[in-house]
Each structure stands twice: as C-alpha cells, then as structure tokens.
C-alpha cells in the first residue's frame, strides 16, 4: 500500500518535471518572441513616424480636413494614429506567434477564432468612429439652427440628435460584430420608440399651443406673410 502510494507520487512528480521541462523552454521562447516583437514593433513605429513626418502627411491631413475630423472625435493626429496602429498590429502578431509556440490546442483555437473575428471588430470600430463624427456634426448643426430660430431649448435638441446618432452607431457596431443581435435590435427599438413617444407626448401636452401655431402657420393660412421666426427685426439688406 505504502509502496503503491510512493510509486504514484513518484509518477506524478516525474510527469510534472517532464511537463515543466517540456513547457519552460517553450514559455521562454514565447517571452523572447513577445519581447523581440515589442522591440520590432517600437522600431517600426519609429521608422513609420519618421517617414510620415518626412512626407509631410500632417500638412496633407490638415489640407484634407482629416486632422479637424480626428480632433473633433478626440483622436490623435493621423501620424500618431497610423504609427500606433502599426505598433499594435505588429506586436499583436508577435504575441499570437509566441502563444502558438506553447502548443496549447484550446488557446490556438481561440486565437484562430480571434483572427477570424478581427475584421468585423475593425469594421465596427470604423462604424463607431463615423457615428462619432456624424453625431458631432449634426448635433452642432441642430444647435446652431435652434439658437438662430430662437428655440427655447437648443441644447436639449442638440443632445437628442447626438444621442440618436450614438444609439444608431452603437447598435450598428454591435450588429456588425454579431453580439446578441436580438437583444441589440430589441434594445434599440425600445429606446428609440420610447424617446419618440416621450417627444410626442411632450409636444402634444406641454406644447399644444405651439403645435397649433405651427400647424396653422404651415398648413392653415398660407397667404399670411411668413414673418421671421423671431418677430420684427430690421431688414438685413
């Protein structure tokens, strides 16, 4: 009995030593690959930044309006963005290469799935970015239009426009990566429907006089001179 137990423990110990002896070199190789990848990625980032500065891409970006778009979306400059993207792509490649050296079949499968998933994630990020830019532009347009028309709550209108575009962009991005499609569609429908219902109730109850005036102005007596929204103002021309 005692001998059997000691034999079992010896077997386990031998297995552990064998596994460690087999895994450790692979792990060290992985660490070397990851560290080397970090250096290579940093070097490539440095070289790319140097080339992009040399080609004056920043000025080209200024001229094309890309810098302004990125600034408004709270993103770094084109050069920083491109060089940062290269750094992370290269390093991520090295990290994945290093992990594959470990020969862990489940991890390899997950990595393979991640690679398949990556293009959809990139597209989703692009959708979010476009949504961010569109939300900024249209919310500002709504704010200016509301202020100049003398509306009472321009900021509310502006934020509503921004909110709707954000919701739309987020739902599209989630749809793109296939995350809980049913839930996203249902949530979007619920949020958008609730917002519209709230607006309709608010306009119908709180602003019924305004609604009446509006309908009278645009549908009722069309012969009435269309005065400026703001009342009497001196003629600009």
């Amino acid at each position: 009995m005692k001998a059997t137990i000691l034999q079992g423990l010896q077997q386990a110990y031998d297995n552990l030593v064998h596994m460690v002896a087999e895994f450790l070199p692979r792990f060290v190789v992985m660490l070397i690959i990851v560290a080397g990848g970090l250096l290579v990625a940093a070097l490539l980032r440095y070289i790319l930044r140097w080339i992009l500065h040399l080609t004056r891409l920043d000025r080209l970006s200024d001229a094309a309006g890309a810098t302004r778009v990125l600034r408004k979306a709270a993103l770094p400059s084109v050069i920083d963005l491109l060089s940062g993207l290269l750094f992370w792509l290269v390093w991520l490649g090295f990290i994945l290469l290093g992990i594959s050296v470990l020969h862990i079949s489940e991890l390899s499968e997950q990595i393979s799935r991640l690679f398949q998933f990556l293009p959809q994630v990139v597209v989703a990020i692009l959708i979010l970015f476009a949504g961010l830019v569109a939300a900024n532009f249209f919310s500002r347009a709504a704010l200016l239009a509301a202020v100049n028309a003398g509306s009472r709550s321009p900021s509310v209108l502006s934020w509503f426009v921004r909110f709707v575009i954000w919701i739309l962009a987020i739902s599209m991005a989630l749809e793109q990566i296939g995350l809980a499609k049913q839930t996203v569609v249902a949530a979007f429908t619920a949020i958008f429907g609730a917002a519209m219902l709230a607006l309709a109730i608010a306009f119908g109850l709180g602003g019924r006089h305004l609604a009446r005036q509006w309908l009278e102005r645009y549908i009722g007596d069309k012969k009435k001179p269309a005065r400026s929204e703001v009342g009497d103002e001196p003629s600009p021309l």
Partner: protein
Amino acid sequence: MADETFLADDFLRQLMSVGEVDLLVGIPTHNCEKNIGDTVATIEKAFQEKFARERVVIVGVDGGSTDNTCEALLNSHATGAANSRGITSLRTIHRIVTKYDSVPVPGNALRTVLAAADLLRAKACAILSPNTENVTPAWIENLIEPVYRKSLDFVAPVYSRHKYDGLLARILLYPMTRAAFGGQLFELQSDEFAFSGRLASHCLNQEVWHNEAVRDAPQTWMAITALCKDFKYGQSFLGPKLRPVGGPAPDIVTVVRQVVGALFWCLENESAAWMNKATERPTQFAANGHHWLEGADQVNPTRGWEMFRSGIGELTPVLQSIVTAGTLSEIERTATLDAPSFNISHELWVKAVYEFAASYHWDVLSRDHVVQALVPLYRGKTSSYLIRHQDSSFEQIDADSEVLCREFEKQRPYLIERWKVKS
C-alpha cells in the same frame, strides 16, 4: 466660354435669331406672373426713351415657375411710347426666355444671363428683379449708361434707405469690403446691378459656378471680382427701394449664411489680391442722390438683444473654436449688460468678425457652421445699433458708420495676421 453646354437648345436657337446686341437686360424670374409685365414695360420704356438706336434684348431666366411667368414675359403688351422727342425705338426689342432650372438658383440664373451676353456680344448688361415694385426707366438708364457710355465694368446701385434698413450692408459688408479690398460698393448684394460684356466674359470663364457661395450670392462674388481684378467700377443712385408688400420677410439667418458666406469665400478665393494691397481704388459715382428716407418704422431692439444673450450662452462651445479666449470673454461680458446700457463696441465687433473670417479660412469647423455662429453676434450688434441710433440724426448715423469703417481699416493688419498664422 467655360461650359456652353448648359444652355438649352431652344434658348440657343432664340439667341441665334436675335443676333448681336448692344444692351441686354436679364430678369431672373420665379412665379412672378403678376409683376413681370410691368417690369418688361418699364424696361421697354427705358429702351425707347434713352436707347432708341441701340440693339437691345430682354432675357428672362426662369427658375421653375409654376405659373405663367414665361408666357407673361413674352406676351405682355408692349408700350410703344415715344420719348420726349417723339421717337420710339428704332429697332426691335427682342424678348427671349429660358428655364434654367426647376428651382430658383441665383448663380445659375446669372450664369445663363452671362452666357447670353457673351454669345450676343452685348456691350452693357443689367440685371433687374421683377419683385422690386418701384423700378422706373430712370433706374435702367442709371445702371446701363455708366457701363455703355462711360466704360465702367460694374455698376452697383445706391438706394435711398430708412435708417433701420440694410443693416448687414452698413455694419458688415460695406466696411469689411472697403477695408479688405479697398473699394467702396455699398450695395454688395443687390437685386439690381449692371456690368460690361468684358466683365461678363471674364466671370463666365471662371471655374466657380458650382461653388455654393457663387450659387447663392453671385452678385457679391461679381462685385468683388470687379474690385479685385482690373475692372472699372462705380455706384449709381437709383432712389428708394420698396420691399415687396405681402411677400416673405427676408430671413436674417438665410441672408447671413448666403451673403456673409459669399464674402468670406471671396476673401479666401481672392486672398492673393487683397492681402498685399492696402491702397484704396477710386469708386466712380455715376449718379448721386439723397440716401436717407424719412419715417422709418420703429424696431424694438429687445428681441435681438435677448437672442444675442441666449445665443452666446448656448453657443459657447462652438465659439471657443472660432474666436480667441479674450474676444469670447469680452463678448460674454457684453452679454451680461442690460438693454439700456447694452453696446457692442465697434472694436469688439470688428475683431470678432475678423476672427470669424480667419476661422472660416482655417476651416476650424464646417464653414457653414462658422457663418451661422455669427448670427447671434450680428443680432447683438444690430440691437446695439438700434439702441444707439434711436434718436440719432442721419448725419450722426453717417458719422458713426464712417467710424466703423475706420475701425475695420485700423484692424486690417490683425485680419492678415490671423489669416497667415493659425492660432
């Protein structure tokens, strides 16, 4: 010609049947069946009385009228009146019409008239609006004659105005144009003006016709082109201009977007011409007259002041991208003043307008948004003007306008500085 193909075949046939002309009057029309007959009759009367020996044509350019405007223009009864010496026109007064678009686009309308003038080799041309109800034959004479007989290339009108009318021209367009381009044209954006065949050909050949600024306010662009290039320009007094009764009131936001947008775009487009040239070029006054009309309607400045205050409060994040911190804090301080003591100084106004123009140039936001953000400030300055000049005499207003012009000229180096270096 830059692009002849935009003219309809039928219109080209009509032009060929007219042949060469000396004078051309273009009328951009849109649903003005009731007025167009009177306008045509006035033009024909002017031709018969003052230009009896000239070859003339009236060109109607229609922007999608749904009534019988074109038929009314072609078929309205000719007056056939004789002048003081008993002479009627010695030549046929041609009338031709084309539909240039399904909606009125001022730039396309003017481009069509310029193309017609170019093809017909017209020596002098005028544009008249059928919506101006008090056009007289003297207007046409005063516009065309300086071009036809005194070799001017561009003639802008000068109207008699009530003291609260034409404020955009008085507090922004005129002084800024004068400071930047060195030329004096008070009515930069007018419905009536005249130009030579030479200027028409020059403008027609520019690759600008698809630009929004030119499409919306082509008059402003044409006037500034005359100021910047080697063209002789002048002003001609026409008399009082009455606003159409019962028509839609001019919307301030639309006017500012179109006209100030066009002015800023011209500054951008002609920057090489104005940045290094500070010399004032002489403006010829082809016909002088009294510029003020008595009995202006009282306008309440309170509403504009309120909109200035609320607008500045709401637009602070937008204005931070457009004007400097110092200018913004000064504007915000002004917004705290109560109506009786409310005043936007000339210095602050000019500085802010120049910063808006530079921000337009540097494209810090959508250019249309930059111009729209100026509207609350314009309303504030207008209210400030109304409070200040409620009891002022015409002489006092003229003197104050001159002070504003000088302020624009004084701060011109600041505009250039802001234009050259992005802050």
